[in-house]
Structure formats: C-alpha cells, structure tokens
C-alpha cells in the first residue's frame, strides 16, 4: 500500500483501533476475556484499554471459556454488546456449547437476537503446537445462526471488527496471529465498516486463487510472478455467509480455480467453496477444482513438521502451475 494521509497500522493495531473506536462510540460495548485488562491481553490487542475504559468495560474474567460466552449471551439479551476474547482460538472448544446451542439458536427458536462477537486469535506458523495453532472456522460455519469473518488486511480488520460488533447476530471473528505484526497497511481514522463480502485482492483472468486470512498473503506471494500468467486472488473475508456471487463471478472470469485453506482439509471452508462451484459454476470451469490445505493431522510443534503441514508458497505455486498447464 502506498503512503497516504492515513496512518500505517499493523493488523493487530487495526483491531485495537476498531475496538477502541467502537467503545468510544457505544457505551454498550464491553470487552471480556482472560488477562485482557491489566495485562492488556496475551497478544496486547487491548493494551492500555483499561486506563481509558476502566475495569468494568475491559473485564478480566475467570479462566472459563464457557463462562465468558455464556455470560456474554446474558449481557447481550439485556442490552450490552459484549466482545469476548478467547486467548487462543483453540480454547473456544471449551466455550463451544454456549456458542452453538445457546447463542446461535436463540433467534431462530424464540425471536431473540444475540449480539455478541467472539474474537478468535487463530492459525499457525510459529511453533504453537497442537493447541495454539488451529483454524476452527469450519466448526462454526457448520452451525446455523453464526456469522464467521476472517479479514486479511489491517484496513479490513478494523472495518470488520466494527461491523461485527454492530451486527445483531453472534459473529465469530477470526484474527490470524501470524498477521498480527507481520501485516501493515493504511487504516482510515475514525469509524467505518467493512461489509461482510469478498474482495478481489488482485485482478487476473487466467486463474483464480480463492482463499482468506493469512493464506491471502501466501497466495499473493506464490502467484506474483508465475510464468507471466494473470492470476486473480479472491479474498473471501467472510466465510458465513459466503459471498457466492463474488466466487461465481471469479470463476466466470478465470475458469481455473485453486482454493487454499490453512485449516485441515476435510470440510474446511474451501470444501464448501468447491461444492458451490461444482454445483453452480461447472459450465464456467476449464479444469478440475484444485485444493491446497493442511492435511488432516493436528498442527505439529517442531518447525520442519509444521512447515510440512501448512500450505507453503511452493505448494500453492505448484498447484497453480499444474492447473495452468491443464
């Protein structure tokens, strides 16, 4: 991104900026999580918040993920707008029941919307091991009543955290840990929303790589200079609901599709994208849908093992090259 009049923020600073902006605008917004107050959060997303907003609105909770989500649901239905932080996305398994059975089904069953946002620091690439590296977004995509978003840029991270808080439904906000300090960009000041729609990260017409989160950057790197091919990268940004129009339009333009997930392959977000294209974009295809994802193994700790599992620049590039030659 070129330097403009807006400040350059990291992806992490952009999330902080969005949270701060929305807390200033809306006194109903309440942050809840483990070590988010005095300590400022395990990743420092809420560093300094307690000084500005106080202990009531930047709540250090007991170590209880089900408790965090369950009490957030209660606070939401009496008019608060809680934003829950799971210290790592992996720990949301301990709060899963409250999201799936209480929050997600409340509106459908009894007409009562549950406005909560659950932030999930997700993803691997730094030897976090099997319990600090997962990408659990598909768990929530499969459960009706939850929106799932996964921004890849600093600008979108801010706009989407604000949009998530304002959305009257439960929103699971996937924030990739590997983007926190590695990705920077120009971020508009003040309050703005990024719509829950896909974004073309780079135009192209020979092949489209459809992906989201950290893999957007991997896809851009892998296809930057690939045998002079014009390669589109489509950043899904929102996984539930999927931006079906944008996906099918990209297939119409490019006819060749590579789908990249950092998540484990079976029933990943990309599997749903592949199914959508097979059902509704088949006539536009000029080759098989190709998927690149982590194999169905826990994310291992040791660097050579983890590198063998997560989709690499080389794997993405090779997949594209083979499909271009098809």
């Amino acid at each position, binding site marked *: 991104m070129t330097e403009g009049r807006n400040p350059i923020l990291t992806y992490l600073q952009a999330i902080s900026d969005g949270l701060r902006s929305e807390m200033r605008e809306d006194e109903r917004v*309440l942050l809840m999580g483990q070590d988010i107050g005095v300590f400022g959060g395990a990743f420092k997303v809420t560093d300094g918040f307690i000084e500005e907003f106080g202990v*009531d*609105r930047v709540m250090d*909770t*007991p170590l*209880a993920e*089900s*408790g965090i*989500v*369950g*009490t*957030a*649901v*209660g*606070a*939401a*239905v*009496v*008019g*608060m707008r*809680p934003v829950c932080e799971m210290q790592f996305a992996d720990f949301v398994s301990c709060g899963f*029941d*409250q999201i799936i*059975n*209480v929050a997600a*089904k*409340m*509106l*459908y*069953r*009894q*007409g*009562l*919307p549950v406005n909560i946002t659950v932030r999930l620091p997700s993803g691997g690439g730094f030897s976090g091991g099997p319990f600090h590296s997962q990408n659990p977004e598909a768990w929530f995509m499969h459960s*009706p*009543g939850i*929106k799932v978003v996964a921004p890849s840029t600093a600008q979108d991270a801010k706009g989407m955290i604000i949009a998530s808080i*304002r*959305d*009257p*439904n439960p929103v699971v906000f996937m924030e990739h840990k590997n983007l926190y300090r590695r990705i920077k960009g120009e971020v508009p000041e003040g309050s703005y929303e990024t719509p829950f729609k896909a974004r073309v990260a780079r135009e192209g017409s020979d092949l489209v790589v459809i992906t989201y989160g950290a893999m957007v950057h991997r896809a851009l790197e892998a296809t930057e200079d690939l045998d002079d091919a014009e390669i589109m990268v489509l950043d899904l940004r929102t996984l539930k609901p999927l931006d079906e129009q944008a996906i099918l339009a990209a297939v119409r333009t490019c006819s060749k599709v590579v789908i990249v997930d950092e998540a484990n392959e079976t029933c990943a977000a990309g599997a749903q994208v592949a199914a959508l294209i097979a059902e509704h974009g088949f006539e536009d295809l000029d080759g098989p849908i190709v998927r690149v994802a982590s194999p169905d193994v826990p994310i291992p700790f040791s660097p050579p093992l983890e590198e063998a599992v997560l989709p690499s620049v080389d794997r993405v590039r090779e997949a594209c090259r083979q499909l271009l030659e098809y």
Partner: protein
Amino acid sequence: MATSSTAARTGPNTPSDSLPAHLTLDDRVGLLRAMLLMRTLEERAMNLYRQGKVPGSFYDGFGQEAVSVGAAWAMAAVDRLCVLHRDLGAHLVRGVQPDRILSQYMGREDGITGGRDGNVHFGDYRTGCVGMVSMLPDMMLVATGMAMAFKLRGEQRCALTCFGDGSTSRGDFHEAMNWAGVQKLPVIFVLENNQFAYSTPTHQQYAVNPIERAQTYGFPGVSVDGNDAEAMFEATSVARVRALEGGGPTLIEAVTMRMHGHAAHDDMKYVPKALFEEWRKKDPIDRQSARVAAHGVDVEALKTEVRDQVEQAAATALAGPMPEPESATERVFHPRDADEILLEDGAAPWSGFVTSSEGHRSR
C-alpha cells in the same frame, strides 16, 4: 421458612394457620391458582400427547409446581428469568397465555416458538424470560451474565435461573457459581432437587450436597421445602433483597420430587414405591388448597374456573394452524436494519410490587 436440608426433606405437610405478613390472601390464592393452572394445562397436554397431537415426547413438572410458581412470584417486572422444563408455572406467573403454551406443545404456529422448538423449551422475551436449551445447566451462565450487566449499569434488578440436581455435575454449574461469587452478582440460583436426573439418584450425582458447596463459592446456600409455594416465595424474596442490596448471589435448593417420569415414555420403575408414596402425601397443591380453604376460599370453584380456562385454551390452540413449511428456513439471522429486540418486562403479580409499583418501574 427456609429450613435446614434435613428438616425440609422430612417436613410435614401441615398447613400454616397464620398468614405471612408479606403475602395477602390474594397472593396465597394467586399462588394456588398458578399451580392449578400449571397442573391442569400439563394434564391437558398429556392428554393431547396420548391422542397423538403433541409430537416428540412430553415433559411435565407434576408435583413440582410450587418451585417455579413460588420463586417467580417473588420476582419484579424488571427482573429476568431463565426457566427450566419443569417450571411452566414461572411462565404463567410472568404472563404467558395458556393457549400459546398448548400451541407450543403441539408444534403450532401460535406457540411461543412457532413450532421451532417443543415442550417447555421456550422463553417469551416479552415476559423477560429466556428459554432453556437441553444442555443443562447452560442457562446458569446466561442468568449470571444478565446479573453482570445489571451490576455494571448500576440497576436495581436481579436474575433468576432454575436447574436440576443432575446439572450440578456439569462444568457450567461450577463456572456460573464461581463467576457469580467472584463478581458478587445479583443472581438467584434455584436448584430443583427432584431426587432423580432421569433415572440417576442424587447419591450417584454428588458426594457433597451443593448447598454445602455454595459457601465455598463465597455465598450462602439455603435448603427449602420445594413443595411449599410460600416457602419458595419467601426464600426467593430474601435472596432477591440480598441481591439488590449488593450482597451477591444465593443458592436455593428446592427439595421436591419428580412425581412423573422424566418424560411421557418413562415408567419410573427405578423409583422406590415407598419414596413415591411418601411424596404423594406432600402434594404442593393440596397443601396450598388447605391453607386458603381455612380462610374461606372456595377451592372447588377455583378448580372449575381453571379447568374452564384450560378447555378454552385447548379449543383455541387446536383451532390454530400448523406452521407453513416454507417458514422453516426463515429467521436464522436478524437483519441489520431491523429493530433491536431485547427482553421486556413481565408480569409481577405479588401484592408487594403492585402496591409499591416497584414491579412496574421501567429500566
């Protein structure tokens, strides 16, 4: 009337001669009426179930009417409740209409969930109640969260949640008790000890009575005769005042007995006959009937009136439509531009609220 757990479990079913100062005769009749309405509605629903008009299975609170009726009677309009499947009485006290409840059981469009969920799996947000889910006791945390919001905003309100003896084994019981204790929240936990979780007796559920555990979370636990609506009212009132004064949560163990099976299909062969017979003598409706009859109230006339009301409700519900199949995929997400929907105030019939108008205070 809150007693030690031993006394509550063996307490005699003798009517009290004196009117408690805080309950007028109208209140006492109101308690009886709500219990009668709950029992008569559930009997009618069981009848509809046997006729094949209630899909799935059917769950009721036969014998436990005093717990939810007595507890809900103590709650103000601005208070909020999470109600369990054997607590239909709480919904009635808060103002849910009987025909909508029968429609709910039959999966009809005019039921509270419009056919999206069955039996007492509902909450009418217009009465300040959040419906339960089957995963027990998830709603303990939701009630704790409501109480947390009240405290953060400095409001004079509290939340109440019911759950069973089986629920005390799950992690959410611990998380809610601990959270509420740490933050000293205005929440009332009503543990309905009805002796069995499906077929599992309490001695296979816990080694230490949850009442004793309450103090280890930093707040009191009291054991109450759960078959006495007035005892339930009083214990809940005390807990509510304590909550509003900033004293924090209370755990109330309502000692009662599930007098029907877990659901309509359950023959209860695992319940010892002697235990069942012992509890049959402690019927909460008989007890309250004797109390008000001693003050000249015509209980038989009241029963006839309630029966007529239920028959009318059944006629209305049976005439109502089933939901449109196309509607099955609607209302999964709330539109951004739609009005905000929050829990609203429910009815609060206790004379103490009506005269002080506390029950009608807006937020």
